């Protein structure tokens, strides 16, 4: 067992592979947060007046709010005046095609394994790459356009499709929703926009890759996905940041709208820099993600693999408004060293015959704390609604914590809710069984952890499943003895 622990430590101590820094000239707005900074962000993006007004309303509302303190997290004070709210790699004009993009940027994404480059585009995934505050390029735009799909950066969408933005922006997550959503609404700089027209099945996976590079900046992106009736889209999201001693803030908002019979599948592999083994540095990840199943028979599925960030505060949710709509949440959250995660989901059943399924797997190691916090609410008219929730936690070592806080509320006598949760370590008997079959200790543990997470991994698109598995192996291989 001791040997295993040492092996684990060795593997876990591996360098954070995405922790490099790209030395590129950057265009920043001065640090601090006030109306002038917000106006400058808006001006840099050449936004219409209504957009600026919305940002300012959000900012004024944010000023009246206080940060959340209910999560099982120790959140150090964040000095919002020290952060640069806008940083973009310097380039004269927005590149018209990827050939115009600064090769240094392309190299960065190449190193991260993101298929921006022509030869890598064979992977067949359309990518929007966001570097600090701006999108640097979106691939496969022509092919998507042929299918009628709009996939572009948020800034472009504000220019090119203002009617859609005005209709849907803030309709799922209003700027009054919470402290970090209000902050994001005031200062968001870019993000992705997806529009799938009626009856269209998006011809390929869509993906956004977020990279924080510049020092003392925060990243505040906004993603909006609209799936018209009968459409289908699968969207992937990945993120990394350089290794730094100081903490950086990431406060994103994701809004999904699924109309009648539409399906949205949203997958995330979150690998922000988690800080070093002493808890120094790392990203504070405060994200509001919510999907609205507005139409009957619509479906939204969230899958997340959370391995990074010093602090994760994230609850991807589904509002099941349409009758027979369905929500799913599959999550693997891994914390190590001094990482803290308070993550889970909300399933709000409003419509009749709505169903939801929640599978959450938490793995805690080192001195970390990993909490599942979830809400299942059956509203009064949610006749025959169903929910099934399963939360399993795995503890590795004696100094970590694994917690479960499910809120279950039912106001409908025909609704059914089932919830189960377990907390345990990898059993010696399981290890022994695998070892007796000739597997090395590391392989045995990898296999058991893989099995523990399998229900979630099988929900990930192929490209991500491989990445997620590798990520988990780096962090945890042989972790339990």
């Amino acid at each position, binding site marked *: 067992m001791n040997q295993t622990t040492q092996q684990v430590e060795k593997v876990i101590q591996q360098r954070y592979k995405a922790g490099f820094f790209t030395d590129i000239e950057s265009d920043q707005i001065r640090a601090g947060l006030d109306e002038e900074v917000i106006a400058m962000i808006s001006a840099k993006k050449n936004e219409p007046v209504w957009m600026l007004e919305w940002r300012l309303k959000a900012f004024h509302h944010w000023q009246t709010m206080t940060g959340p303190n209910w999560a099982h997290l120790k959140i150090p004070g964040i000095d919002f005046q020290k952060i640069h709210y806008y940083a973009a790699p310097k380039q004269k004009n927005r590149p018209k095609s990827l050939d115009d993009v600064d090769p240094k940027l392309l190299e960065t994404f190449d190193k991260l394994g993101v298929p921006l480059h022509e030869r890598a585009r064979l992977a067949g995934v359309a990518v929007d790459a966001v570097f600090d505050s701006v999108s640097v390029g979106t691939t496969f735009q022509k092919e998507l356009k042929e299918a009628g799909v709009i996939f572009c950066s948020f800034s472009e969408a504000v220019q090119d499709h203002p009617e859609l933005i005005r209709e849907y922006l803030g309709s799922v997550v209003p700027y009054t929703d919470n402290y970090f959503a209000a902050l994001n609404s005031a200062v968001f700089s870019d993000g992705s926009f997806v529009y799938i027209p009626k009856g269209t099945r998006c011809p390929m996976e869509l993906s956004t890759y977020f990279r924080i590079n510049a020092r003392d900046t925060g990243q505040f992106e906004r993603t909006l996905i609209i799936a018209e009736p009968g459409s289908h889209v699968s969207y992937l999201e990945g993120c990394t940041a350089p290794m730094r001693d100081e903490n950086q803030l990431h406060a994103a908002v994701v809004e999904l709208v699924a109309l009648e019979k539409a399906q949205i599948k949203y997958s995330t592999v979150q690998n922000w820099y988690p800080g070093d083994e002493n808890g120094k540095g790392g990203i504070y990840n405060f994200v509001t993600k919510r999907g609205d199943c507005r139409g009957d028979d619509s479906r939204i599925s969230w899958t997340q693999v959370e391995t990074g960030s010093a602090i994760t505060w994230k609850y991807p949710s589904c509002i099941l408004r349409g009758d027979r709509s369905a929500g799913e949440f599959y999550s693997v959250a891994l914390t190590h060293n001094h990482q803290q995660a308070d993550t889970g989901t909300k399933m709000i059943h409003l419509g009749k015959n709505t169903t939801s399924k929640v599978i959450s797997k938490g793995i805690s190691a080192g001195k970390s704390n990993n909490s599942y916090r979830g809400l299942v609410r059956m509203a009064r008219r949610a006749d025959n609604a169903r929910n099934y929730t399963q939360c399993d936690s795995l503890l590795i070592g004696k100094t970590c914590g694994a917690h479960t806080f499910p809120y279950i509320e039912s106001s409908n006598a025909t*609704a059914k809710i089932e919830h189960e949760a377990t*907390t345990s370590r990898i059993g010696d008997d399981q290890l022994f069984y695998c070892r007796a079959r000739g597997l090395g200790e590391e392989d045995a543990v990898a296999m058991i952890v893989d099995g523990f997470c399998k229900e979630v991994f099988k929900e990930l698109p192929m490209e991500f499943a491989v990445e997620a598995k590798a990520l988990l192996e780096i962090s945890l291989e042989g972790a339990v003895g």
Partner: protein
Amino acid sequence: MSAILNKLAPESELADDRYGDIRRRAHQRLMQYGFPDLKTEAWKYTSLRVLEKRELSATGPSEAGQPATLPFEADVIPMANGLIDPDRLNLPAGVRLEPMAPADLINLDYGDRAGAMAWLNLARFEQAWRLVIDATLERPLVLAMTSSSDFAASVHPRLQIELAAGVEAVLIEQQADRGAGLINIVEDIALARGSKLRHVIQRRNADSIWVQRTRVTVSADADYRCHALDLGGRLVRQDLSVHLLEAGANGEIDGVAFIDSKQHVDWHTAIDHEVGHTNSRESFRIMADGTGVGVFNGRIHIQRGADDSHSDLNTANLLLSESARINIKPELEIYAEEVTASHGATIGQLEDSALFYLRTRGLPVDQAMALLKYGFAAAPLENAEPEALRDWLTAELETVL
């Protein structure tokens, strides 16, 4: 919730007895923190707003109704309208009742506003009793808490119950409120090494607001088992925390709450494994009918280093009407590695197929429903011992079905 604070008598009117300093300190804390509202996590589903509307007198009527007779022999300590008359007691051998020493109360801490009702109790208790059980009891000891129909006062009874090492006892809290006041009880129960306590809470209230905070500490090899049958009341809030302090300690809670129209029952239980080699189990069921609201918050906390602890919590709940509501929150907070902890929770309704089965056997709908409800609710009471106690609890349950 400052309206409740404003209604409280000022500090200068607190009784200036030998507990005076304790009362003033508690009053100051209460004024500092205020009462909980729906934003206070521990009171998220239960509002104390009803307190704002009630005009409560400081003292209640002197007489209270008689407790219902029990179908088995028992020693009874009557607590009428929150007060125990020590002159009218006939305690069995090995049981002592004496006023608590101020030294036992001076360092208490109930935290912030979530503990406001306990601070209120400490500031305003009328009596603080220490009940010591030194010898194994042959008959159950019954604490019969009754209130009369004209009861409209606020009372704050305070009890400290101690079981000496190796002692075995059955303690029944038989609570029958008929009034419309506030009964705010704080109760501490300590089980010394190797002792065993079966703690029964049987409650059937009327319009009073009933807030009870029970804290149990369990020493080495001691065994605490709670059997609760809560048949509702206008507003009931029960906090029951069981602290397993030493290796070998065992804590179990089995409870049922049946809630009908215009009733709100909130059970907050917590089992705290402070050291390793401790075990706990909990099973709690709620049935809510009419416009009743049921709340269950069950927390399992395994502290750092409490290896080889095992805990399981199960809660099943039935919504019996369109307007009833049930909110539950089973929590796990685990800081030790070599443990097993799990919980399961469901909210649903009576199965149509089961109902159909009984109907095909010739049972009328009402009877079939009652049988199914009984089958559901009686399960946690099955563990109650001795048999006479179990029969009494299940018979009480039957009366409401």
